[in-house]
């Protein structure tokens, strides 16, 4: 179980907004996080990953404390075993598809499997600038899985994929999550996008 209780003020054009989240997410399940633009969905994911520190709050994952501002505990992102799919993909321009995955894992068989899953077999030696938007997005998903994380945080991960490809990848991801015992939080603008993928839903207001 992931328990989150945080407060974070963020600067906006209109002034300062307060993001306040109190939620529990099921372990080994896929939960979609929805909400209007500017509600703080991406900020929430980054706080869970340890990339942003909130002013107040506590995050516990299976009773392990990742963050507790009252006792100054703040586990580094490197120690959280989290995979992150960024909305802008955040691919490394200097690395090929295979190098992206090898950067996270030395398990060649697992990497081959990921590449097949992402339908990127023919693009192993391609760098991001030579991939289409959909291919880049798939690579971003695969890279986040390369480290075999316990928690996968995905920010709008299927927005550039066509319907058929999206459904295929979703079903293969579910099998992989089950096998590797991965908990997944998916941020999406469109509640229907992750339909059939997510088992639970949380709305950020």
């Amino acid at each position, binding site marked *: 179980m992931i328990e989150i209780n945080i407060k974070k003020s963020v600067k906006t054009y209109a002034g300062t907004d307060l993001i306040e989240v109190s939620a529990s997410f099921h372990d080994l399940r896929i939960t979609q996080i929805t909400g209007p633009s500017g509600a703080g969905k991406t900020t929430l994911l980054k706080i869970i990953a340890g990339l942003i520190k909130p002013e107040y709050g506590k995050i516990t994952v299976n009773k392990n404390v990742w963050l507790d501002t009252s006792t100054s505990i703040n586990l580094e992102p490197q120690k959280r075993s989290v995979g992150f799919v960024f909305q802008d993909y*955040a691919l490394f321009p200097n690395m090929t598809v295979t190098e992206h995955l090898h950067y996270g894992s030395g398990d060649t068989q697992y990497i081959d499997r990921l590449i097949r899953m992402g339908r990127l077999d023919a693009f192993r030696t391609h760098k991001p600038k030579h991939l289409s938007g959909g291919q880049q997005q798939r690579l971003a998903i695969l*890279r986040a899985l390369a*480290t075999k994380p316990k928690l996968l945080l995905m920010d709008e991960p299927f927005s550039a994929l066509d319907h058929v490809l999206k459904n295929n990848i979703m079903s293969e991801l579910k099998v992989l999550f089950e096998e590797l015992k991965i908990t997944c939080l998916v941020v999406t603008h469109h509640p229907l996008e992750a339909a059939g993928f997510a088992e639970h839903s949380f709305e950020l207001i």
Partner: protein
Amino acid sequence: MDLTPIFLSLKLACITTLILFVIGLPIAWWLSGRDSIPKLFIEAIITMPLVLPPSVLGFYLLLAFSPQNALGKWLQEHCDIRLVFSFEGLILASVIYSLPFMVSPVKSAFIHLPGSIKEASYTMGKSKFETLWYILLPNIKSSLLTAAVLTFAHTLGEFGVVLMIGGNIPGVTKVASIAIYDSVESMQYANANYYSLILFSITFIIVLAVFVFNRKSAKSPLE
């Protein structure tokens, strides 16, 4: 024609570029982080040689390292180092004078990298150093080359600072730019022309090489 001034200039430029590459990268990395008042203050000091007349910088360095003054006296008595009118003094002056040419392009390149690639590396369990080594530095290769070349070329062309702190000692501090000035002063225009042509050719080849190397990796070859 005596080629010693050309070799001295090349030696000075190589050593200065090497030293600045080592100390300039961490400074640029640090400056590219979140703004703070001390950072702005230090950045302003680093940038000063860009706008300050070289003779002003040379004058103060000469005063500071003169054995008649406290710092120069201390260096000579305790470390047996004499910086004025020596090649070591030229190196120190060049490092200070060329520092902004190394730091500014590298800092700018770090700032323009998307922050999310750094974050992606952290979430893959990589340390700050691994992220710098495997992700950030390879993605600013063209800026690193530009910074190194600008530093090298700028050091090669130094005159004011070099003259103030090093003087004109043949084989020690008489670099190519001083040799040109010296030749003109003594009406040896043919000599001045040789030195000038050699400096011109070296800098042209270096700049051309940067343009060729960076033609695909940067929007502007001197980016």
